């Protein structure tokens, strides 16, 4: 079996979907290849992070986009499908795909890689105890808990936590684990999570342990001030050095330098949330080998040097939040369209 499409899009997250929809509006047929059972990727597991008003997390935009996808007959979606190999070059590609046990070829003039990113594997930061302590979770896990269960609870006993600590830069800006880059989205992401939790559970106290706060767009300043004004949100410029399990209670003890007291302190928390950074997934890394693409110093996909019909879209080209992924994908769609026009 061989399919023929104008464009093959690898990855069915928000970036891949956006590229496909933009191209469809220009009458370009595309196939989205997604390895999971459903579209949406990482961003489809995000919950709405509004408090009294919208905090501009863009999660709702992803949901809307996915529901609009069926509007376009130009887009075919291949879920549970993976790329096995590629033949051809320069705008004449034949890609071998595997859907469960079935193998087939797809011919396309252009290929867009939009595989997105993986969250950093937090167990690499041994000192934070992820994987060892049940109540140390990643921000993504917290996000999914809020979206699908609709409630906040501790994994250990299912009880609602009273105090939560957010550790920033887990897997970002960290030479010790080889990630010498800022993941760019985690500050705003974690603060939005804090804000929505504080709105839904006013009794919860949140501590945000950070290095530098990275701004995120037009209304971030107002958003940040509203966090600073909240008496139950503590923004502390200090990354923790260690997490212990408190033997006498079910709390976790965290050691860090308190910049106010100017000394090492320890504090207890019910739940610890790690703001994990972004890394390129193993799957994408092998994909870059398949397509002969190089990686940037930071380990993301470098923009293909010559326009041979290979394009990248979204966060796999470097850390991006949802709105910037959408913009980047739109701009990629433009380039793809120009490429196809040039060939026609």
């Amino acid at each position, binding site marked *: 079996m061989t399919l023929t499409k104008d464009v093959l899009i690898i990855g069915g997250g928000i970036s891949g979907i956006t590229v496909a929809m933009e191209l469809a509006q220009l*009458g370009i047929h595309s196939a989205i290849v997604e390895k999971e059972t459903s579209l949406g990727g990482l961003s489809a597991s995000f919950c709405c992070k509004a408090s009294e008003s919208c905090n501009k*997390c863009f999660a709702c935009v992803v949901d809307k986009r996915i529901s609009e996808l069926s509007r376009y007959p130009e887009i075919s979606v291949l879920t549970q499908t993976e790329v096995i190999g590629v033949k051809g070059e320069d705008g004449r590609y034949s890609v071998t795909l595997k859907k469960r046990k079935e193998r087939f070829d797809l011919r396309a003039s252009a290929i867009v890689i939009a595989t997105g990113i993986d969250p950093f594997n937090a167990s690499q930061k041994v000192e934070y105890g992820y994987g060892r302590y049940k109540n140390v979770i990643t921000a993504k896990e917290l996000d999914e808990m809020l979206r699908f269960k609709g409630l906040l609870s501790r994994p250990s006993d299912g009880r609602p936590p009273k105090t939560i600590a957010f550790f920033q830069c887990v897997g970002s*800006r960290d030479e010790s684990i080889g990630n010498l880059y*800022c993941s760019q989205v985690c500050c705003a992401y974690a603060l939005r999570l804090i804000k929505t939790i504080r709105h839904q559970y006013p009794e919860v106290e949140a501590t945000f342990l950070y290095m530098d706060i990275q701004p995120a*767009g037009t209304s971030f*300043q107002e958003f940040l001030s509203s966090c600073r004004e909240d008496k139950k949100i503590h923004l502390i410029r200090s990354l923790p050095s260690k997490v212990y399990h408190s033997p006498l209670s079910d709390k976790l003890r965290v050691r860090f330098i308190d910049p106010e007291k100017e000394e*090492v302190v320890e504090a207890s928390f019910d739940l610890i949330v790690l703001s994990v950074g972004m890394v390129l997934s193993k799957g994408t890394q092998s994909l870059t080998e398949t397509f002969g693409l190089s990686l940037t*110093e*930071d380990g993301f996909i470098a923009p293909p040097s010559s326009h041979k019909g290979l394009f990248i879209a979204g966060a796999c080209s470097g850390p991006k939040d949802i709105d910037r992924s959408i913009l980047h994908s739109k701009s990629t769609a433009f380039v793809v369209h120009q490429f196809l026009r040039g060939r026609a």
Partner: protein
Amino acid sequence: MPRIGILIDTLQGSVPASFQEKLSAYVKEFPEVIVCFKEDDLNSSDAISRINRYVESEGFDRVVILGGSPKDYEISFQKLKLSLPLNPYLFSVANIREQALWISSDEEMALERAKIIISKAIHTVNSTKPIPTQSLTLNPEVLILGGGLIGISIALDLAHAGIRVFIIEKEDRLGGKAQKVFKWLEEKIDEVEKNPKITVLTQARLKRVVGHLGRFEATIECPDRKEITLAASAMVVSTGYASYRERKGIYAHKRVVAIEEMEKIMAEASGPSLLKEGKKIEMVTYLLDEVNEDIKIDSISAIRQSLILQDLLGCQVAVLCKDIKVSSNGMERLYRRAREKGVLFFKYDDPPRLSIVDGQIEVDLKDTSPIQKKERWPVSILSDLVVIGESFGPIPEAEELSKVLKIHLGPRGYFMEDNPQLLRVRSNRKGIFIAGACRFPQEASEALIEARAVSQEIITLLSKGTYPYDLAVAEVDPKKCALCYTCPRLCPHSAITIEKYGDRNVYTTPMTNKEMKWGAAKVDPASCYGCGICVAECPAKAITLQHLTSEQIYAQMNLGE
């Protein structure tokens, strides 16, 4: 009497057959219902042809589908709108799955609910008129306001795609602020000037805009006060930002310079050291985040400059900021390099104090880095040069421009409020897009991505040459309109103007001139999204939404008279 055909979607077995039997018995109680069929997957692409067959063979003129969420069907019907046998507004979906079966605790309750939903759906199709579709011709002509980095980039993109572009630039040459920073911009400007598809009007000012999507008419004031009128299908606002800083007190000292001036000083430097008034500059202190701590540009420029100063010009550099902003590609690495080269970074909460000591400037601050008391020293830097950040803001013309274009300003005076639904580049008006720093100042690489996204939006809009829209929009009854100006003020999409009504909606007495017109609010149907805000606000009840009248809403409430 209308002839309604009921189609029951089997929904792949998610609704029990017995339940559907009960519903099909129920719908037969309605006198208008003439037939009732079961079908599979009515939201699939071939469903239309099956519906079509029924319409032809059974002769019904309205369809109610008993199935799942109406959103699924509406979306697939919309895309195939033209091939539908009936006007899409003569279809209605009774969501008996999500809104009845699945949310009810028992089947009896589900049935009750389903019956109500069905009767409402039947009422809806009974009371709706067919709504026609129209289309608008779009010429490939775009007007770009602002010929800076972003305007140039969009203009070239669009011109390559075959679109005629007009650039309106207020200065006497293209390039804007970016021409000081990017040498390669010169080539681009050259390219723009040589491109036959691009017309550049410098020292020009947008004076007036009338019309809507597809037929904007912009009056431009040129340098000799001559006015010209340009027609455009779409517009881009890329007017950039304003940077200025009031220099008072110690900030007016000659040893205090802005980052932009520093760029110039460094460019003029020759040899291994930096001289100011013949004296070697040894200590340079960057003082950032005093204003605009949410904008990354200064932080990035400071790190870039500090590397050169420290490495090539023999200076010792200290960077003072609230937060180091490294959230852009490669910046953390650069920050690291700067520290390795010996650049000192300090973070503060309380503003650092500046004082003049022997012609030099002493900067004192309380460092807030998380270090222990025993390691903490008071920081006092005697500097030869203090480099301060810019103050970024919206351009002074922003407010006037927003009135001319009838687009919104956000709370800080930049264009557009921060609403995710605008996807960053859309404005409140169809056909007007916002790009770059006039929405929010950001670094060039990000702004260029935004610019290209705007190009993509415009290509998508203009590629077909027409813009189809249906008339399921707000419509004003000019005879009831009290001319109160409520709707033009409140229409979020600026789709309503007070105009003279002509041929449509006007009654003419036999002997009067056919040209007779009178003023009333008028909705531009192609620019209207059909949100219904104006309908709800009109004090004279002069506006209706054809596909969702008040009467239909009351029927949906199901409360009786």
